[in-house]
């Protein structure tokens, strides 16, 4: 008895003792979402140049990282938060978690990729959420990729589409927003009518991208040849094939207004310890060496127009006309859309 009690107490004391750790000088902590990736080399370069230590701290998906930053408001555990996109911007601005900063290099970012006019969040990268298809499956079943969203409610595609839950997944929400843009909200046949018909046509809703892609997409053992994913996914399939391939096994379906432009940015958290270093990091992240590094790490496009795009991105076509719904409108209506969608598709 004595032993276990003493051990428990010692444990507690150790916990408290070790917990009182000090913060290193010139340390820059960047909170990111789980999908963030960059070369170690570049981080080392920044550290050497500014005599600093950089800690990249993944904090769940974009939504989880944002909730965390909001809960830590005023006493942040990080200096920067990377991963705010146009679906979350409204929330982040409402909560006033960021300080303003406008780097000079913003001049090199084309207007359509500027995420935040108010200057709190600086765009770093962008990508597109759209449908992918399994090339072999469609060929085997004598199908051609759909050219309109309406086709998806027809018999050819019955039970052949898997999407992500708009209430829990970023690509899921992005696709929902594209359907709002495509069908409108109060037309004779609006986005909810479309979703009602999709449901009747046996659409499968999975909770996250990983489950949808790796368990239900026909490419990976499922029975659904259409999946909501990213325009860069075929490029990733090409790069990460088990054996070298000429062309990827999946392709993009780019329907006007039915793909979603997702812009991701970085912001300085209010109350950050290393504010100056944080500004320098944002400048660095907009520079071409950083901008040319992450495309093949994260499978997103650089916002700096001078950054070269890697060769593998020839399989990551850019949609000519993505959905036209701005971050502010999304901020106002996302909850309403999600609830209406959940009502129609899940309940």
């Amino acid at each position, binding site marked *: 008895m004595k032993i276990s*009690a*003493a051990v428990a107490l010692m*444990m507690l004391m150790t*916990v408290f003792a070790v917990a009182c750790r000090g913060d290193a000088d010139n340390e820059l902590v960047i909170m990111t979402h789980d999908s963030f990736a960059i070369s170690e080399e570049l981080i080392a370069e920044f550290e050497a140049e500014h005599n600093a230590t950089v800690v990249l701290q993944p904090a769940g998906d974009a939504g989880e990282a944002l909730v965390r930053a909001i809960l830590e408001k005023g006493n942040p555990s990080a200096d920067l938060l990377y991963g705010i996109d146009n679906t979350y911007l409204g929330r982040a601005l409402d909560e006033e978690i960021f300080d303003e900063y406008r780097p000079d290099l913003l001049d090199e970012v084309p207007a359509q990729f500027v995420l935040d006019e108010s200057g709190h969040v600086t765009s770093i990268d962008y990508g597109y959420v759209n449908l992918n298809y399994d090339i072999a499956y469609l060929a085997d079943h004598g199908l051609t990729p759909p050219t309109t969203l309406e086709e998806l409610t027809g018999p050819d595609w019955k039970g052949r589409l898997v999407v992500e839950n708009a209430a829990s997944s970023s690509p899921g929400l992005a696709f929902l927003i594209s359907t709002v843009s495509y069908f409108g909200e109060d037309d004779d046949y609006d986005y909810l009518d479309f979703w009602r018909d999709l449901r009747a046509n046996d659409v499968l809703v*999975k909770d996250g991208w990983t489950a949808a892609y790796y368990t239900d997409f026909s490419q990976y053992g499922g029975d659904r040849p259409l999946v909501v994913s990213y325009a860069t996914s075929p490029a*990733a399939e090409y790069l*990460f*094939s088990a054996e070298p391939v000429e062309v990827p096994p999946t392709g993009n379906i780019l329907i006007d207004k039915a793909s979603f432009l997702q812009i991701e940015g970085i912001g300085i958290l209010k109350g950050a310890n290393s504010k100056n270093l944080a500004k320098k990091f944002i400048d660095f992240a907009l520079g071409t060496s950083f901008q040319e590094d992450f495309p093949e790490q994260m499978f997103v496009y650089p916002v700096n127009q001078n950054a070269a795009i890697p060769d593998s991105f020839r399989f990551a076509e850019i949609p000519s006309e993505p959905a036209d719904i701005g971050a502010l409108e999304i901020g106002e209506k996302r909850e309403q859309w999600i609830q209406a969608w959940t009502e129609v598709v*899940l309940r």
Partner: protein
Amino acid sequence: MTANRLLVIGPVAFLAAFFLYPLAAILGRSFGGGEFSPDPFWVVLGDPYYLGRIWFTVWQAAVSTALTLIVGLPVAYLFARHEFPGKTVLKALTTLPFIMPTIVVAMGFIALLGPQGLVNTALAGLFGDDGPQVQVTNTLTIIFMAHAFYNYAIVVRIVSAFWSNLSPRFGESAAMLGAGRIRTFTHVTLPLLMPSLLSSAVLVFVFSFTSFGVVLVLGGPRFATLEVSIYELTVKLFRLDVAGALALVQLAFTSAFLLVYTRLQAQSAVPITFVPVDAVMRKRRGFRDVAVLAAIVVGLLVVLSPLVALVERAVSSGGGYSLTHFVGLFTDDRGSYFYVSPLMVIWNSIRFALASMVIALAVGTAASYVIVRRRGRSGVVDALFMAPLGVSAVTLGFGFLVAFNRAPIDLRGSWLILVIAHSLVAYPFVIRSVLPVLRGMPPHLKESAALLGATPLNVFIHVELPIIARALLVGATFAFAVSMGEFGASLLLVRPEFTTIPVATFRLLGQPGESNLGQALAMSTLLMAVVTVGFVAIERFRYRNVGGF
């Protein structure tokens, strides 16, 4: 006297500091910190949707628990009453499902039962493309199957540990008095096993009740449990108040179940003579015994087949077998900042698991003594100590962030927060395995030792420890397993250098591509290998120190 006081203070302080305080902190924050408003509760309790979720959560947990007991009991019997070559390894393999990341298990199921899985391919080969097909993915059935798959090891371990020290004499007497095998089982063995059955059943129930990954990944959002709703409200809809209300509703339900259970548990325990394992194992084997054993072993292998399918996929590449994906794990092609060598990842998992195990054993054992001694209100105290299992992981996770965010306890970015979070889920397993044995221990044993002049410490080491040793090992096994398999707490941290095996697996599955999938499965295969070795090591530990018990 001081020792006794410490014994009480230790676990209570742990619970207060790392459970009640963060929970209060996040709930205070969720409800705005000001005066209490009942509105969020009306949002929850006045909405047929949430009421439906509550009802679904309850009944799916009940069905899952029943199914888990049915799968687990025969295997528990196998390990409790029979000695055979390879038993330790088989026992370790039995417990593997418990630690596997849900998304990986989902892939195992798909590889077997999916549209292009082994079973359906075989059926198509036999009956043609239009013949019968198995369709279980994205149905309720697969949720039940997965819950049983995940949790049957809880039943196997806890019940077989109890069973294997239970004197076979009762059964023999019943047989001598003319009772048949079935009658002996239902009227003698089952009632004697009741404390351990209830113990494991309540764990399975609470786990199924708060299930998140299994339901989401295998069932899909149409089958959302309360835990899923809490997650969506917190992270996607930012309705912290409604999420907080729902988390309290969930906690109220789990607490009610735990209270009912602790009441039953206290009633079902009778002092029992425990005997060494050697006296219990069946030595003589008839044809019937062998047939029963073989059937159970085959059944067990069927249960484990999704894991075999995973390993098979991990070593497949380009139509043949190769170690490409394992080699890929060890190469850092992209020079990524987040690349961590698999050896480092494995070492992280092992050290965090060992640390969590030590804390869980200390807290769990001390808490068990606290509970046993509170004769009057032991049910309430027991339920309180079990509460960390019944609370929403999302809520508690964010609670940690809000609670431990300034000096002197700024745990953010520290690996301790991870270990503490793991121990919080792990120590209830220690309580559930130790308590039935502690309750069944005849009081005269300790009293005689004390009369003969033994100090309390000596009584513990020489009398009590040998008797609870087996239960402690079960607790240790699960504490180790909980930590090894835990993924959710990555929300709380974690610096890349603390990447654990499940986190690394999930990271690989965040991008498309055959080799990402292959490497994720290779990582999971390494997880299985490490955990099997860990389980066998824990099992061996017993024989060295405490002989037959």
